[in-house]
């Protein structure tokens, strides 16, 4: 089994919302005081790949696109148990939309060559788009199953439990295929000491646009089809009426009274 997992570095989505700041002039955002992290849903995809590797053997290659990629962030999948890391690291790759990003990732997948399964997170925590996986599938012309909560490999096929609003579908797909992974797959494992030591010894392979034979007009910001015209923070008034009271009973009774006055139930 050759598995390629696409995962990126993002601003920490779980940092307190109060630390979220926008640079409106450049349509960029940051989490003040919180270091970047590996995208959480990408981490679920890494976890899914390692579960398959445990069951079936094989090689897990992690593919990450961006610039200014911090090695301790992008090497985390290696510390969790992945085997190789390929970085598409160049300013030209950045600020893309799902389409231009997927184009570059698909070109890198072709250069890696052998793959049975490509895994992505169900959506990235910054764009919340959930398009990269399906887009890679369209570019490569392979089938795609999204929102996986379980993946089993047998006889050149993947059997996938796909999350639906009322439960899940069991879907079978021939390999190679793209699968996007949801949190129901189970908590990503922590890197072990042994894993961290092993990761230290693995040097990432870094590719520039020319290395994957892609024209810079097709990638990053230049290759966008979706144009961003504005980025802003919605305002929450935040005028919460707190119930008063000395004891839990008083607090509870006062809250119930407020709700009744407001005819909330």
């Amino acid at each position, binding site marked *: 089994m050759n598995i390629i997992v696409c995962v990126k570095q993002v601003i920490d989505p779980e940092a307190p*919302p*109060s630390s*979220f700041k*926008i640079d409106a002039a450049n349509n960029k*955002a940051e989490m003040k005081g919180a270091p970047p992290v590996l995208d959480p849903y990408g981490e679920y995809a890494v976890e899914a790949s390692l579960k398959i590797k445990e069951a079936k053997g094989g090689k897990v290659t992690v593919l990450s696109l961006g610039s200014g990629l911090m090695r301790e962030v992008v090497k985390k999948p290696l510390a969790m148990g992945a085997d190789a890391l390929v970085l598409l690291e160049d300013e030209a790759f950045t600020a893309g939309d*799902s*389409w231009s990003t*997927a184009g570059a990732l698909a070109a890198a997948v072709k250069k890696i060559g052998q793959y049975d399964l490509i895994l992505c997170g169900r959506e990235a*925590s910054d*764009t*919340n*788009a*959930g*398009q990269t996986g*399906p*887009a890679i599938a*369209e*570019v490569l012309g392979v089938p*795609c199953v*999204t*929102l996986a909560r379980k993946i089993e490999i047998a006889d050149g096929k993947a*059997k996938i439990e796909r999350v*639906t*609003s*009322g*439960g*899940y*579908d*069991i*879907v*079978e*797909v*021939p390999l190679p295929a793209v699968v996007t992974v*949801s*949190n129901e797959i189970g908590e990503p494992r922590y890197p072990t000491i042994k894993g961290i030591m092993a990761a230290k010894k693995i040097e990432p392979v870094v590719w520039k646009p020319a290395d994957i034979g892609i024209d810079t007009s097709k990638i990053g910001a230049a290759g966008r*089809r*979706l*144009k*961003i*015209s504005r*980025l*802003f*923070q*919605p305002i*929450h008034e*935040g005028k*919460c009426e*707190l*119930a008063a009271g000395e004891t*839990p*009973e008083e607090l*509870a*009774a006062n*809250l*119930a009274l*407020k*709700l009744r006055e*407001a005819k*909330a*139930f």
Partner: protein
Amino acid sequence: MADYRGIAVFCEIKGDKLLPIAAEGLGAGRRLADALGQDLSAIVVGSNIAGVAPQAIMYGASKVYAVDDPLLKYYQADAYVNVMEKVVKQIMPAVIIMGQTDIGRDLAPRLAFRLGTAVTMDCVDLAIDPESKRLLQTKPVYGGNAHAVFTTDTNPQMVTIRTKAMVATVPDSLRKGEVVNIPAGLQAADIRTKVINRVLEEVAGIKIEDAQVVVSGGRGIGGTEGFKQLEELAKLLKGAVGASRPPCDNGWMPDTVQVGLTGKIIAPELYIAIAISGSSQHMSGCSGSKTIVAINKDKEANIFRYARFGVVGDWKKVLPAFTAKIKEMLAS
């Protein structure tokens, strides 16, 4: 570009009924069509769906394109992408609207890239730019911490819309419309995936999507036992129990009751959030609620920025007293 005209809404159905998200899509589509002075059409895809087209007309479509084929009984990306590609190439709409559902999330990107265009997922606002006449597509990003407005130069302009973010048109059974049947032209071999089974894990009682009152618990509830107390309050208020992600990840509650960006988007009359910090991703799923109430021991918790009423305190002490008081009020 002038060749692309009108708004088309991909309408999701269950059995032979239009889903609420389809009515919301038609509502949004109607307003855009009026702003452009163009037509609104509906696209319905499935098997044995003759009864659906009149509903789409009732909700505002003046034309319904129906693709009815046994191979379309259940959603499968390959079948639906192929069929939609064919329909869209025939009708050439300027705008396509779908729902941000388990189907829309899968179908919309595949279709957009197949058609050589782009899609903005999970829009909460849609408008026509008065000058360019292009679609302004507003969607939450960074887990709801920010909103972004997107436009495209490519056609058709595609979006999915967030559940309950758009208002449906008032249905009118006298409205007239035309139904156009389009053959699917599918071969079984076109469909590379195979659905082996569909498993429903629905919880007993009222579904959280439908409930007027939702009592939700977070990581601070600590386990299954705690959620029993939330159930008691929910039952009293004829509501349903929901959860933030950690209780679902920990198996205290089924995944189907997760509220938030990657769970259910709900908008009940009353949302009671207990031991939930109010992360932007969680609030994405419930900020449309009419009244939000928070019980949290941390007075700095983000949830208090959204809540109308609240108590700062330990839920283990406050909740039993609160439930008792509500019971007393309801009895009198």
